[in-house]
Structures are given as C-alpha cells and as structure tokens.
C-alpha cells in the first residue's frame, strides 16, 4: 500500500508539471479580460452589458479552473464528479428567479391598494 501510494504520488507530480509559459500566458489573459469586464461598467444596463459581463466572467472562471486548478489535465471521472453537480444549481437559480418575479408582482399589487 505504502509503495503504491508513493508511486502514485510520483506519477501525480510528474503529471502536473507544465511549462511556466502556460501560467504566464493565462495570468496575462486574466488581466486583459478583467480590464475588459471593468469597462463594461461604462455601458448602459441592457442586454449588451449583461451579455459581456457573463462572457468575461465565464472566460475568467474557465481559465482559472482549467489551467490554474489543473482541471484540464485531470481524468474525466474527476472532472464529472466536480463540475457536474454544480449544474444542479441552475435549477435553484431558475426557481428563485420565478419566485422573485412572483414576489415582486405580489408586492406591486399589495402596495397599490
């Protein structure tokens, strides 16, 4: 067991050594994309602004998870186990959006009286 664990650790260390160049590139990209997302603040609130905010957000999140957190080099079993469950949260977000909208309309109706 001890021997197997050591072998595993050695193989793992070897598997997660990547050229420093990749990190520097991603670092630079994160700065550039962050600057872009900062400038969305100068747009009016509307589909363009919200779309760009989401685009830059997912780009940055993707870079961090894939490269900095090494997810791109993990096996599919681990990727699915970690990245799959958060998809369930979409259901929560949709439900709470419907609920929020309903509360808003109810309040409007109640305060109008």
């Amino acid at each position, binding site marked *: 067991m001890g021997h197997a664990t050591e072998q*595993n*650790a050695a193989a793992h260390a070897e598997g997660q050594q990547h050229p420093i160049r990749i990190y520097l590139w991603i670092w630079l990209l994160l700065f550039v994309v962050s600057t872009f997302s900062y400038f969305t603040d100068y747009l009016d609130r509307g589909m363009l602004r919200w779309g760009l905010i989401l685009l830059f957000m997912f780009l940055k999140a993707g870079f961090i998870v894939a490269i900095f957190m090494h997810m791109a080099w993990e096996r599919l079993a681990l990727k699915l186990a970690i990245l799959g469950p958060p998809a369930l949260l979409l259901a929560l977000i949709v439900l709470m959006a419907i609920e929020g909208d309903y*509360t808003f309309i109810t309040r409007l109706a109640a305060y109008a009286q």
Partner: protein
Amino acid sequence: MTQQSTTAVEGLAGVTADWSADKQSFPVPWGKAMMWIFLLSDTFIFTCFLTGYMNVRMSTTEAWPNPSEVFSLVVAGKHVPLLLIAIMTMVLITSSGTMAMAVNYGYQRDRKRTALLMFATAFLGLMFVGMQAFEWTKLIVEEGVRPWGNPMGAAQFGSSFFMITGFHGLHVSCGVIYLAVVAKRVLNGFYDRKGTYETVEIAGLYWHFVDLVWVFIFAFFYLW
C-alpha cells in the same frame, strides 16, 4: 500529460473503468480529492448566497443602489467608478498567478522559490483583506449602509453586501493563514522529508477557488 491510472482508458469508458474497478476512483492524492469535494460544497454555499441576492434584488420594489456610484472613489476631484474594486480584483489575480508559479516550483522541489512565491501570495491576500476593511469602513461610516437599510435605496443591498463579501473575506483571511503555514513548512523542508509537494498544490486549489468566487461576486454584485 494525463494522470497515471491502473486502467489507462480514456473518455467515458475511462469513467466507467475508474468507478467500477475495485480500486480508488480518482488517481490523485486523497488530500487533493478531498479539497476538490470541499470546494464543491463551498460552491454550493456561495451560489446559495448569490441566488439569495438575486432573489431579493428581483423582488424589491425600491430602486437598487447603483454599485458603480456607491463604490466609486474620488481621485483628483473626479468620481472614478469601482476603482477600489478594480484594484482589489487585480491584486487577487496577481496572487493567483504567484500561487500557480509556487505550485510549479514546488513540483520542481525548489524550496526557496516555492516559499517566497507563497509568502508573496499570502501578502497579496492580506492587501486584499485590508482594502476590503477600508471599503467596509467607508460604506458603514460615510455612506451609512447597514444590514437593515441604507440611504441610497433598497434595504436588502446592505445585508446582501455584508453577507457575500464578508463570507468571501473570511475565506481570504483563512487562506492567508493556510498559505503561511504551508509556506513555513516548505521552507523548513517538511515536504522534502515527506517526499511530496502535493500539499502546495492542494493549498493552491483553495487559493484559486477564492479568486474564482471573486470573479462571480465582481460580475454579479459590482457590475450587474
């Protein structure tokens, strides 16, 4: 570049093989798998906070305070929107970069550079928390924002803000302590004696996650 596995099958067949064989499912150090699972649970917590914020922001009939005005700083007599937040974002990204480099040097067993980069990361984390303390002070003392109300608009603004950024700041503070402890161990050769630097990568996972959460807070709370 892929992980060494006893069943080196790739793709979906690999998922089946990894889960069904009589062995551990993930060919990574157990600490790393556990950190990932902890981060998964933390993802759920932060999403619940952000979803709660979405819900109260959608349901309030009062106008939501404009974050770009609330969080503006006066520089040379002019209001610059979100200036402090932009600097905080850049500091956190810089710290993520130094952390990624630290993990790389850790696997090369370069003790000095690994420790130095980790201390740099912790220091940038401290800077972030310091700026957050400044932001909180300004909001509470000068703008009169409270969890139950504020002069700018919807009362829910304060509670959402303090809860979300407070919980994130707590994560950064814990991360600073965590990184300092691991960096000290790197320096005194603990991981050389242990035979592996995987702990540096695991600490790195936590730190990058803190940066990741900030990406979402920045987008949804400050920019939206």
